[in-house]
């Protein structure tokens, strides 16, 4: 990322409709359409789902058996058209060039989804001996089909670093913040239905989410700010957004902090770029480390990922990969955990951290305008900034969570099964938005250009902070609060 996504975010904070509010509209729309099946009206069952394959003609199928007359490719085309329609309307609301968006989104969708299909190839995705036998193979990279996210990311990286003009051309559709926020809003409902079956555990996870807030804002931020100022000699203008980007939540926090301390816009843009680059590296490494060392402590792994990966998109998506890897490893040992808890814990940790961005930005704004760059009274920090900088997509997450939880707790057994199927349909779109997010993050990560922009010294702060402090403290606190707590078993 250089000027594109971060500057869109800055501009968007001044617009009435921005990506946050669009996610509050689109996420519940997807969720609501999925819930129509509770009234025996299946509005989203045509959406394409992908299976592990050796024969590509068997890779795709519509989600619902009632749409079985549709071929897999037709289901995928219908999914593409639906997303094209909704997201083009979103682009229009954002005052983007809609025709250009439609064209570039079409290319983006098919490239990203092709990566997902490739990721489900049996030699990449199959994990257990039973899988090997089923697909008639003798070897596999054992990435699970969520390895498709990694392939989408790698394809995006290849485009960004070897075909920069093509990457620039795709720009209008490369909107990872929009895609991941919609996905997280949909995920709210999915998490709620999962959590309803085990409320005690869910409330435990929430309580521990509070520890994440304390850690990110009060401990990480202070240490990283001190390191940036004292040992790397960064000015206050650079050190504050850098500390927020590394400790809290990447893009949004860096921009909120930059705005709060009245830094120049290009400072937050460059810091945001740095966070995305490192998030890419973390996504490629941390889930596999979690599988190797924390497979028997799944929620420690989930919390660790949420505390260590510093963009919403990369963190939540990394949580999904970690879940697939850990569930598979445990399944091979005969332990079948219920899916959704690892991803849900990671997402909850990130959402909790995001909740306080506005408040932290206000605190910093107050300190900066009152004590450091003393401003005229009319320019000082105002309480309304808390609302202005609050990530609005969290309202969508809370909405779908409340709806999902209410339904899950109130429905009888027969309808509970229908609700599970409905959530499955919503989840198809959540996964599709994840795929688009991974691909987009990759396309935004032109390492050479970012290095030319002066990223070296900033990157040094990130390396020292991440590998010297953030990862280890995150692991310690995750262990302290989640050790011994396991997801429920499936079935």
């Amino acid at each position, binding site marked *: 990322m250089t000027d594109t996504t971060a500057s869109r975010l800055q501009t968007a904070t001044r617009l009435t409709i921005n990506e946050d509010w669009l996610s509050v509209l689109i996420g519940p729309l997807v969720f609501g359409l999925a819930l129509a099946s509770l009234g025996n009206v299946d509005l989203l069952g045509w959406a394409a789902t992908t299976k592990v394959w050796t024969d590509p003609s068997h890779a795709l199928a519509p989600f619902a058996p009632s749409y079985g007359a549709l071929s897999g490719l037709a289901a995928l085309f219908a999914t593409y058209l639906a997303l094209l329609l909704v997201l083009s309307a979103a682009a229009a609301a954002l005052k983007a060039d809609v025709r250009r968006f439609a064209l570039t989104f079409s290319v983006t969708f098919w490239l990203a989804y092709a990566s997902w299909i490739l990721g489900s190839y049996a030699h990449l995705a199959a994990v257990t001996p039973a899988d090997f036998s089923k697909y008639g193979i003798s070897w596999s990279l054992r990435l699970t089909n969520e390895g498709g996210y990694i392939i989408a990311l790698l394809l995006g990286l290849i485009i960004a670093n070897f075909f920069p003009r093509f990457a620039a051309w795709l720009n209008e559709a490369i909107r990872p913040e929009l895609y991941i926020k919609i996905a997280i809003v949909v995920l709210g409902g999915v998490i709620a239905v999962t959590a309803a079956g085990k409320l005690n555990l869910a409330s435990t996870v929430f*309580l521990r989410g509070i520890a994440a807030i304390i850690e990110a804002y009060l401990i990480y931020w202070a240490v990283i700010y001190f390191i940036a*100022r004292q040992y790397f000699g960064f*000015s206050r203008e650079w050190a504050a957004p850098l500390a927020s980007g590394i400790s809290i939540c990447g893009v949004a926090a860096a921009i909120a902090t930059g705005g709060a301390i009245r830094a120049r816009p290009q400072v937050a843009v460059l810091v945001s770029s740095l966070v995305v680059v490192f998030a890419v590296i973390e996504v490629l490494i941390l889930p596999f480390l979690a599988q190797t060392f924390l497979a028997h402590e799944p929620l420690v792994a989930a919390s660790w990922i949420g505390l260590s990966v510093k963009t919403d998109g990369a963190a939540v998506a990394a949580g999904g990969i970690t879940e697939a890897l850990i569930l598979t490893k445990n399944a091979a040992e005969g332990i079948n955990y219920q899916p959704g808890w690892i991803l849900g814990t990671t997402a909850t940790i990130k959402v909790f951290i995001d909740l306080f961005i506005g408040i932290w930005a206000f605190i910093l704004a107050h300190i900066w305008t009152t004590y450091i760059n003393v401003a005229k009274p009319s320019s000082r920090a105002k309480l309304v900034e808390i609302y202005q900088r609050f990530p609005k997509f969290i309202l969508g997450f809370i909405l779908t969570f409340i709806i999902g939880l209410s339904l899950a707790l109130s429905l009888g057994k027969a309808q509970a099964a229908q609700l599970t199927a409905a959530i499955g349909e919503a989840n198809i779109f959540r996964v599709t938005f994840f795929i688009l997010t991974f691909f987009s993050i990759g396309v935004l990560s032109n390492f050479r250009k970012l290095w030319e922009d002066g990223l070296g010294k900033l990157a040094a702060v990130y390396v020292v902070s991440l590998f010297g402090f953030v990862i280890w403290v995150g692991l310690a606190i995750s262990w302290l609060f989640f050790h011994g707590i396991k997801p429920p078993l499936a079935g």
Partner: protein
Amino acid sequence: MADTDLRKEIQEQQAEPLLPIEKKLIVGSLLTGVVLLAALVVVNLFLGS
């Protein structure tokens, strides 16, 4: 600001000493964070027992 200017600015930045308010922010945040975490650990143990 041009990219090369930004790179030059980062590389040639002169260190600014920490102001008293910055020191208060760093120390205050850390102390508050550690105390609150410790309290949360106690609550966690109490709820778990």
